[in-house]
């Protein structure tokens, strides 16, 4: 298990691995397992004391299990495909050269592709900054990476409905672009001082 976790981290971190992250990931998984056991015990005890609530609880849980079986494998396969076919090197190559509106849209799109967890986006962003990319584009890239992942949005569409997802998504995109330029301005201003 530990061996596996290590391998997994090495793979997802590729060249830019760091040891603190490894420990964190392991602790996180352990913590989740402990919570899982705790919540199973709680559920068993609660349902033993209040058997009249059993039907509703089990119904809700089994409905969710069915939903997840229908949707999660496909989403995870899509994410796996993206992380294999769109490498970090490709993202950096495209983003390093682009500028203007094109650069902005490219940052948004590159961020939206599900190429991996957020913690590998930070070293990429810092590398891009060193290569001379705009601060605004980096912020847009990071924020899109964090909150506008394409397969994830399909899950949001499924569970929250089209109106919720489209409105939240469009405002998020607008605000992320605005934030990119705002942070760039603040950054320039404070560097001048």
């Amino acid at each position: 298990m530990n061996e596996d976790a290590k391998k997994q981290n090495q793979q997802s971190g590729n060249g830019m691995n760091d040891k603190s992250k490894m420990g964190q990931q392991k602790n996180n998984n352990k913590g989740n397992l402990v919570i899982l056991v705790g919540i199973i015990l709680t559920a068993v005890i609660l349902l033993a004391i209040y058997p009249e609530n059993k039907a509703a609880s089990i119904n809700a849980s089994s409905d969710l299990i069915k939903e997840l079986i229908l949707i999660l494998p496909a989403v995870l396969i899509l994410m796996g495909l993206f992380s294999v076919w769109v490498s970090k090197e490709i993202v950096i190559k495209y983003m390093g050269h682009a500028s203007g509106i094109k650069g902005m849209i490219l940052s948004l799109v590159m961020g939206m592709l599900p190429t991996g967890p957020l913690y590998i986006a930070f070293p990429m962003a810092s590398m891009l900054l060193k290569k001379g990319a705009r601060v605004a584009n980096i912020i847009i890239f990071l924020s899109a990476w964090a909150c506008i992942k394409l397969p994830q949005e399909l899950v949001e569409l499924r569970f929250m409905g089209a109106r919720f997802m489209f409105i939240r998504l469009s405002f998020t995109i607008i605000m992320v672009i605005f934030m990119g330029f705002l942070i760039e301005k603040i950054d320039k201003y404070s560097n001048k001082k």
Partner: protein
Amino acid sequence: MKINITVIIINILAILGISFSFYKNRGKSVKALKIALKSSLKMAPAIGIIIILVGLLMGFITPELITKLLGNQTGIIGIILASIVGAVLMIPSLIAFPLTASLVESGASISVAAAFITTLTMIGFVTLPIEMRELGKKITFLRNGISFIIAVGIALIMGVLLK
């Protein structure tokens, strides 16, 4: 169980994607499937937690209580609290959507849901140290701070638009 158009589209995309990928490059496709398997194993405990949590929520907590705690009348305070919870928690967002959906179904307001989802994805307490090391304190605090304000703003707008 409702099989709807979204479910069909996602599965068709996945099947087309993986078939095309195998056609192009077998090794890479196997690797993609391995990554998918590994991330599902990594997510498994969290998925289990959410499945049981949703069951308990629907079985034990009355819609009245949820409406009282997370409903519209909690106003801006409810939104800010939801934003803080979303910023601190580390739930894979894939799993957070069904949880939020069941809360909304039993009476939580749209604003609270939007605030929670937006900070959950945009702000990472756990990843703050990495972000600071790679991009510096200034950019990290600005990005996370402004994201928080944006989340509250989006939540308020959505509360008005989706009433």
